């Protein structure tokens, strides 16, 4: 099941399958972000172009105010999607200690 939530300012988590049926939910949560935020993707199993579009829009909106989304702990599938679309060049992709275990 797809889920996305803000844990605290600067920290959010996304999990499950981010397909085209989930864009409204994701957009609504990402629109609440007002500062640089680490988005933990440890439990995100799947993302399609619909999900990429929502993440890209959030990154653009935050960057206009000098902030950004940091994408943490991507699975192989999610990382492959970012590599194919070259979106890895417009996001900072990181590993965090909380996501590595």
């Amino acid at each position: 099941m797809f889920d996305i939530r803000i844990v605290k300012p600067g920290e959010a988590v996304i999990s499950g399958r981010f397909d085209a049926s989930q864009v409204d939910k994701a957009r609504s949560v990402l629109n609440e972000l007002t500062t640089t935020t680490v988005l933990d993707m440890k439990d995100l199993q799947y993302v399609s172009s619909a999900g990429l579009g929502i993440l890209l829009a959030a990154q653009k909106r935050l960057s206009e105010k000098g902030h950004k989304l940091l994408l943490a702990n991507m699975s192989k599938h999610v990382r492959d999607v970012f590599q194919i679309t070259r979106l890895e060049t417009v996001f900072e992709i990181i590993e965090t200690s909380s996501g590595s275990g």
Partner: protein
Amino acid sequence: MQQEFKRNMESLENVFDFLHTFMSQHKVDEETTQTMDLVVEELFTNMVKYNPEAREDISIRLDKSSNVLSVCLVDPNSKPFDLTQKEDPKLNLPLKDRKPGGLGIYMVKKLTDSLDYEHHNGKSTITVTKRLE
């Protein structure tokens, strides 16, 4: 194996269930199944997005012969739109100029071995194939 699906994004759950049943029956590995999830979602949602007025269901047919997977999607009531001729998105632009449009079909092209489009008597047929390792 073939099934019809309502023309809306909420059908995706049923589309994935259908796909996973087929992949499981044919013992297709998890990585390939995820790739085909992506391919089928992009093609199905493309048909929904660009032809929302039509009422007819979209059909999806899955086949596997020796080491090739084949997926065929049919929209029985649509205007011609040859997605194989769609220009690839510009992927080297800076963030402010990047646009999400076109990424789905671009990924389908990159992840499959063939992508064919036919339009005949108002019916669009998209067929993709993927060789299995």
